[in-house]
């Protein structure tokens, strides 16, 4: 059974809380960054929350995900602990990677998050291997592989979809089409224009979905995951969404207009939309919505508070750390 069912009041509440948790998490990062407490760069998923939450909500225990450089939302939606994520971003020992990996490398393999990845399309072939692994081990797990519209032009996309196709593997390729790579508009970078339509090249029927509509994402992914779990072979979903923030910290938004951003924020925000839909359909009351918002804010405040108290790693941490096992002669 899916982890949450947004069509029920309890599921709607969970889904909304998770969306808000993601947004508050990202906002907390912006705040820490502006206060000089974060180093490196990071890629925020504000505006794309419904994809992560809708997709991960449709999974079952034991299912796996692979994520991207823009992976905070995936991690939280898959059940990641914001404190450990925040500690990772702060470079602390309580981080998921003990502070070694940072924003682009949060992973929790034990719980089925095979990891964010700093290489565009870098996790797509990894997802294929994980799917093969699950099948060879006799499980019925499905792997959801998140990737961006820009990633669809990497050779790895092609090889991954083809291999998954010929081996009929239980993997759902989930494109978060937020309209841009770093700066390149999707239609300027992508011949043919559609990622979903590329599925046909591999015998996969691609599905396009409104990525800012949580219910729609959930429904589409749930259907695909069920089909895949039943042995139907790989799937491809393209969720149309938008990122509000710059690609990363150095972005001056030269490639798009402020009007465009504003329109998405005011007209199609996934959190606003889901709140309205949940209230309209009677799944949540206005008070409940307010409560959930407050829960998310408190959770992130608490996570940040604990994360900043986590110790910094010591350089002794680096000794032999590149390997799981160093032979005697290598010391």
């Amino acid at each position, binding site marked *: 059974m899916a982890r949450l069912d947004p069509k029920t009041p309890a599921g709607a509440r969970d889904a909304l809380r998770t969306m808000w948790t993601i947004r508050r998490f990202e906002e907390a990062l912006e705040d820490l960054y502006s206060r000089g407490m974060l*180093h*490196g*760069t990071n890629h925020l998923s504000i505006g794309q929350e419904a994809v992560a939450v809708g997709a991960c909500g449709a999974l079952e225990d034991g299912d796996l995900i692979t994520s991207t450089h823009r992976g905070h939302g995936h991690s939280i939606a898959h059940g990641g602990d914001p404190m450990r994520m925040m500690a*990772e971003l702060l*470079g*602390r020992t309580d981080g998921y*990677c003990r*502070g*070694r*990996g*940072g924003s*682009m*490398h949060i992973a929790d393999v034990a719980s089925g998050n095979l990891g964010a*990845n*700093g*290489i*565009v*399309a*870098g996790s797509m072939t990894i997802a294929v291997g994980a799917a093969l692994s699950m099948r060879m081990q006799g499980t019925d797990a499905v792997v959801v592989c998140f990737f961006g519209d*820009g*990633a669809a*032009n*990497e*050779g*790895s996309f092609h090889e991954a979809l083809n291999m998954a196709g010929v081996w009929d593997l239980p993997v759902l390729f989930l494109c978060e089409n937020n309209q841009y*790579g*770093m*700066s*390149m508009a999707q239609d*300027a*970078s*992508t011949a043919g224009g559609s990622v979903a339509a590329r599925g046909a090249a591999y015998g996969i029927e691609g599905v396009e979905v409104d990525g800012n509509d949580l219910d729609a994402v959930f429904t589409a992914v749930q259907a695909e995951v069920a089909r895949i779990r039943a042995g139907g072979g790989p799937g491809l979903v393209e969720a149309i969404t938008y990122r509000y923030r710059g690609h990363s910290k*150095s*972005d001056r938004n*030269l*490639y798009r207009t402020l009007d465009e951003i504003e329109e998405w924020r005011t007209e199609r925000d996934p959190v606003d939309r889901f709140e309205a839909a949940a209230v309209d359909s009677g799944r949540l009351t206005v008070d409940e919505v307010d409560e959930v918002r407050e829960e998310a804010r408190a959770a992130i405040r608490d996570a940040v508070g604990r994360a900043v108290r986590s110790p*910094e*790693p*010591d*350089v002794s*941490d*680096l000794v032999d*750390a*590149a390997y799981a096992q160093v032979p005697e002669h290598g010391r």
Partner: protein
Amino acid sequence: MSAETMSCAKALNAAMRVALTSDPATFLAGEDIAVYGGAFGVTEGLLADFGAERVRDTPISEDAIVGMAVGAAITGMRPLIEMQFADFVVNAMDPLVNQAAKLHFMYGGNVTVPLVLRLPGGGGTGAAQQHSQSLEAWFAHVPGLKVVAPSTPQDAHDLLLAAVNDPDPVVFVEHKLLYREEGPVTVRAALADVDGGLPGTAVRREGADLTIVAYSLTARKAEEAAEALAEDGIDATVLDLRSLRPLDLGPVIDAVTRTGRLLVAHEAPGPVGIGAEVVAGVVGSRAFDHLLSPPVRVTGGGTPMPYAPALERANIPQVEDIVAAARRLMAEDD
């Protein structure tokens, strides 16, 4: 033309401007280099002045970007490619190594492959494992490739023009932390103003006690280290390799013959790095008889580049690491 103060990023930008202006066969391509101006702003403003045909934003397709450059280069163009981060060149190793490096020889000398591949590398920006690598050792191992690594704005400018002039594929190693480093730059008027071929090792400082060899950002650190050592009365020669393939060992051998002591420093991992080649080259030369103590390497990369600032710092050779190693080296035969 007289020199003006500018950053390495600006000096590179000015070089591209010179190339685009003086040779219609040149063009730029790379991810987010046009509208965005490059992830590090190095190509800023070029789209406006030279247009989208010659300053080309590409899809995120590193293999096709470099393969395309090979195809253009063997048919009369001079592509100047930016790999957004050096780390992504892993996706373009076939066109670079199996094609660009080999075609001139493989096709019997009947083609040249005049392409330049800029690789912004190195750590210190908190970008962690997959955005911080220094991969130049790989390319210096490959017959058919040339590899250069400037450390000053003037060298950045001149070497880039020399690389564009060169008939062979040139891997152009940049360190991200150099982009903002400033220095005097005489901007050349045309490609033809840099016509001496790719330059070799530069002497940055002369000293009698030991020879410190480095390149790229680490060459700047070596100079700083030499200043610190001078305060202790240790007088170091500092050499900046600039060209990693071919490697200009002559000045290194001369210096070690005089100083008797060799220290090589770089940010890339030690094993099978440029430092190993420098040491092996020097001890295999006439300098062997003049060596007073074992040559020393100070390198980074004990692990993949870590994210946490303290760990990252520890994984990269710092000025004080070079100073400490030089002191130990001097103490050894006291």
